[in-house]
């Protein structure tokens, strides 16, 4: 899956394999993501999307193959990788006893942001996500949608060059989801590189420059949403997935 030279690509994955005892979660995955590109990893639950993200973030060691982020090998230079990235986990991971602002500022501090810039950025993002008024309430009292928005801000507070957004809108109401979509589009406009995992096909079509469809740990198709729809003579990406696998992407949910 080579579109550009390695120098131009921000994320390079080559023949990546990850096995958990007798289960192969990722099998021979190769892909490249350009700087400033919004790349969608699509697939049903258990397809290997989150495992791939976890390897790219330095949370998991690959069984074989290689991966680099921002030119840094994820195995050899995990610290350098972590300085470049922001990660929004699939399951909301916030401290319930801290306020929304404290959660956000904690992660800004963990990225060693200057105090003034941190406050400015926290205000900006909290306002953008319509959480400013509630920012001094403890997250434990937030609704599910509010927690997910804080979850996203915590990943992006330090203005990372590369963002990994793992199912960022799952469980959100349509209004919140639309707000997050706008937020993600803004990242793209700012030239950030984004890897987005989702099993919402409409989300991928709306946001992604290119998508890779993963099933059973293998990359079974990739390209722009338009090119995939044209290639498979499909109305949408859901149809593409059905043609490739014989089932709907959300059957397993």
């Amino acid at each position, binding site marked *: 899956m080579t579109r550009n030279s390695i120098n131009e690509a921000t994320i390079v994955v080559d023949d990546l394999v990850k096995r958990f005892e007798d289960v192969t979660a990722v099998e021979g995955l190769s892909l490249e993501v350009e700087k400033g590109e919004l790349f969608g990893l699509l697939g049903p639950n258990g397809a290997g999307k989150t495992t791939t993200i976890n390897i790219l973030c330095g949370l998991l060691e690959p069984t074989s193959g290689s991966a680099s982020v921002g030119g840094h090998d994820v195995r050899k230079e995990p610290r350098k990788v*972590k300085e470049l990235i922001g990660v929004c986990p699939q399951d909301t991971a916030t401290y319930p006893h801290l306020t929304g602002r404290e959660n956000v500022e904690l*992660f800004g501090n*963990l990225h060693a942001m200057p105090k003034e810039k941190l406050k400015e950025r926290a205000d900006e993002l909290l306002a953008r996500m319509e959480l400013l008024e509630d920012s001094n309430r403890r997250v434990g009292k937030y609704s599910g949608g509010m927690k997910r928005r804080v979850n996203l801000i915590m990943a992006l507070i330090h203005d990372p060059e590369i963002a990994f957004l793992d199912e960022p809108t799952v469980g959100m109401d349509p209004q919140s989801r639309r707000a997050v979509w706008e937020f993600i589009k803004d990242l793209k406009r700012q030239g950030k590189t984004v890897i987005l995992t989702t099993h919402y096909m409409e989300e991928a079509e709306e946001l992604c420059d290119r998508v890779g469809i993963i099933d059973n740990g293998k990359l079974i198709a990739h390209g722009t949403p338009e090119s995939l729809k044209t290639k498979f003579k499909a109305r949408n990406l859901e149809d593409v997935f059905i043609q490739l696998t014989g089932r709907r992407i959300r059957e397993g949910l």
Partner: protein
Amino acid sequence: MNSQRVFSLVGKDLKKTIRDPATLFIIILFPVILTLAFGAAFGAIGGTQQTRYQIGVVNMDLTGPYQQWSQRFMGNLTDTGILTIQDYPTNESAQGDLAQGKIQAVVAIPADFGQSCDSFWTAPTNPSLWVNTTVLLYLDSGSMFATQAIPPIIQQVLTTTLYGTQQATAPNPIQVGSPSLVEASELTMFDYMAPGVFAYAAIFLTMTVAQSLTTDRENGLLRRINTTPTTPSEFFTGQVISNMITALVQVALVFVMAFVVGYRPKGDVTSLALAFVIMSIFALVNVGFGLITATIAKSSGAATGLAFVFILPQMFLGTFVGAALSQSAQAASRFVPSFYATDALTSLFLRGAPASSTTVLVDLSVVSICSVVVMLLGIILFRKYGKT
């Protein structure tokens, strides 16, 4: 190491201690309530209230020319204000009530008690002419109060009876089973317990550290922190600092509460400062045990139960609870760090030992070594097996 990261983690942990009701109760309120309750029950609130002990007296020196000595001895026992005296006609009847827990001790005055006292005053400087005898003392072995407090009181009353005033070191012809002279009349049971109460409070850090880490692991927060440039050394330094601060607050609160209920430790400002140092180092032992617990436990619920594997031995063998233990249990207590923390504070606060005394320094060394070993073990295990 980046101080901004470390202190943000410290702030996060301290906020949890303050804001989470369960943590706040275990770490702060529980020691305060414990101190107040124990102080009220066994101490001297306002410095005026004293514990009373029920003791049985069997006077076998009721006839003969010297019986006024045994009467004087019994009068002095009553005059302590600490003992409630109950007369028994025979040793058997007194032993029966002791076995049933109705009284906490039996004092058997021998038939030659008065003769012994008189022989002393006949030739006070010639022990070879004394009629030596022994006042038998039976204690309720199940009562730590009886075993600790009563023998020195009896010894003191005996000395007062013989000399008319308190004499700490003068010889006399009458012996009591436990002749050590402690100023029991000025000490309450709480004075013996207070050093252990300090350690008791810190022991529960094991549970809160384990719960906190397992909860953060369950909620994906440890993984999330691991996606930032935060290093393991920064993370664990944050744990160490926040828990040391918590331990210092605990010690300060327990001390203030103990002071409120009439506790007046011996020692000076240096002793107090050293006590704070010892307890903050002891806190690290418990943070280490918390890390080990969090490594083993699969969930926060399991962590709560597993933490007691470390809490109970430390609690029963190394704090005030251990005062009435069997000999074998007391030998086992040498293997728990809390014993040395309690012993150091007992030396400083009860025995009035100076901060530079060998006992205190040995205790401090043992606690320090334990803290390094347990913390390192905890960090190694948690990093290898406990993060996910």
